[in-house]
């Protein structure tokens, strides 16, 4: 019995040594949740197998801005997701390393940890942020690379192995760790300091025109924008869901339907957030609208009927909600209050 106890004590001591002696651990880094979010919406989604750390975020940021992920070194994630465009692009579709344009508008990147259903991209085909990052690296019209080469380059780089060691306790680089690091950085891209956020917190006032625009946004008999794009109590300004918003009478790009295989999903695309609209033109999944005015005109007069058009689209037979020129101007004024210039200029998000 005595020998047994000694053996158990020895095992306990050894296991204790094993964990204690691992020594270095990356520094845990909680997301800085804005007051306007904690007051109104549920906490962000952080995968248990990829906790935020200071070293992981720093590594992810370096990777995000580094052309090393592309086949010829000419493009990085930031090439199509520029901080000055709220991490979107200012062209309808983006040009990859081969000089070929893609066929979807670059989605802006912010508040991604609050995408509760974790369906990413315009079509929702990627079921986590980490998985979303895999695609552009190998896509022939984006970074046109392969993961074996990416891993080899990073492994042979004079800096990266040490940075992975700091972030993940291993200098053996893998696709899994690369995507985890970039996802950690992307989750820190939080935008919650617009004029409207300040208004909601009692720190700013809106002009009468902006208030009129908010009224149009919220009224079901006017713009009725809130059913898909949130409201002052949902400061994400998106429902994170998928809708056919009446862009086309004939559906050639099936959107969500191409991913799910359900014809009822044809022509549905993710509701983009209205935050930072001022910086994310052009608009829609294919960048067809160059200006915010064109977007408003679409919902007012330009709706195209199709079998899967969302029933939330009003007055489809008349082309839309029929806003007057003044109402359109007011609505636009309100939408621009959702712009957050501090997000664009946040030094933590610059290369």
């Amino acid at each position: 019995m005595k020998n047994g106890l000694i053996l158990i004590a020895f095992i306990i001591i050894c296991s204790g040594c094993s964990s204690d002696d691992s020594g270095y651990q990356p520094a845990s880094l909680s997301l800085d949740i804005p007051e306007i979010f904690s007051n109104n919406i549920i906490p962000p989604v952080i995968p248990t197998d990829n906790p935020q750390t200071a070293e992981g975020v720093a590594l992810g940021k370096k990777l995000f801005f580094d052309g090393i992920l592309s086949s010829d070194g000419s493009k990085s994630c930031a090439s199509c997701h520029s901080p000055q465009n709220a991490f979107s692009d200012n062209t309808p579709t983006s040009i990859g390393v081969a000089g070929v344009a893609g066929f979807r508008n670059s989605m802006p990147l912010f508040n991604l940890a609050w995408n509760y259903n974790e369906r990413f991209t315009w079509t929702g085909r990627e079921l986590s942020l980490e998985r979303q990052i895999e695609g552009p690296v190998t896509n022939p019209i984006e970074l046109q690379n392969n993961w074996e080469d990416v891993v080899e380059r990073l492994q042979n780089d004079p800096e990266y192995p040490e940075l992975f060691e700091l972030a993940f306790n291993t200098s053996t680089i893998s696709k899994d760790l690369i995507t985890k690091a970039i996802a950690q950085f992307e989750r820190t891209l939080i935008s919650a300091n617009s004029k409207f956020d300040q208004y909601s917190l009692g720190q700013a006032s809106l002009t009468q025109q902006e208030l009129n625009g908010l009224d149009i946004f919220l009224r079901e008999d006017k713009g009725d924008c809130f059913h898909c794009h949130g409201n002052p109590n949902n400061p994400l300004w998106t429902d994170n869901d998928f809708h056919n918003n009446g862009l086309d009478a004939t559906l050639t790009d099936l959107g969500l339907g191409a991913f799910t295989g359900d014809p009822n999903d044809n022509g549905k695309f993710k509701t983009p957030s209205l935050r930072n609209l001022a910086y994310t033109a052009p608009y829609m999944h294919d960048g067809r609208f160059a200006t915010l005015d064109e977007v408003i005109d679409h919902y007012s007069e330009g709706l195209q009927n199709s079998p899967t058009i969302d029933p939330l689209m009003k007055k489809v037979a008349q082309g839309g909600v029929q806003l007057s020129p003044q109402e359109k101007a007011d609505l636009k004024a309100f939408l621009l209050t959702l712009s957050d210039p501090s997000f664009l200029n946040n030094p933590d998000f610059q290369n």
Partner: protein
Amino acid sequence: MKKNVSILCLILLFVSCNSSDDSVSPSEVSATFKFTHNWNGTLIRNFDFGPIQYVNANGESIGFERLRYVISDITFTKANGEEIELDVYNLVDLTNEINLEYTPNNQIPTGNYTNVSFTFGLDNEDNAENYTDLNSASFNVPEMMGGGYHYMQFDGKFINSNNEEQGFNYHAIRAVDNLGANPTFPQDTFFTVNLGAIAITNDVEIEVKMNIAEWFSTPNLWDLNIYNQTLMPNSTAQIMMYENGQNVFSLGDVIQ
């Protein structure tokens, strides 16, 4: 050591006997509410959404795109009038088949209940609260329409009198007039759903059936050509929804 082992065996024996003794009924149990949906008896699941394949009481062909609603304040009433009211709510989302089964954290004493009930929607006090999960689900009602939350969001399409597909938004909220900074409320439109008597002897699963067709039938024969969209600021439509809602829910299987 031998003595210790004997004591341990004795304890294990007692514990074992206690846990396997089926003759002892628990004094408190969990109650799970299972929400099912049908169209005049035909079970509706989310994969039935999309096609226009049902006909409402007014003869309009209809299909569904989205259905979610809040129930709250589940109440167990005993014969002596004693009530156990659970200050809870649940957003039932048939579109994504989320929260179709809901088990409140509270345990319920076993016994004979003369009625089990819940509120469809949120009463005015609860509707004035701030619920981060309902906000995250974009279930709010804008302030100028009274604020608070939708009771139900039911969207779909129907074939209108011009033989064209048209959308409808059967959104139930607190009926409101005089939209703006000082809206007024003509009458309450949340309502109590009485499921009837249930004798609870063990952990119980209570099926709550929603006959979706009833929203369109009694006492108000619903004409989708008249009432289809922009019904939130229409207090007449809201009161009609309230009246039709009285016959929508019923008690299904009780399993324990």
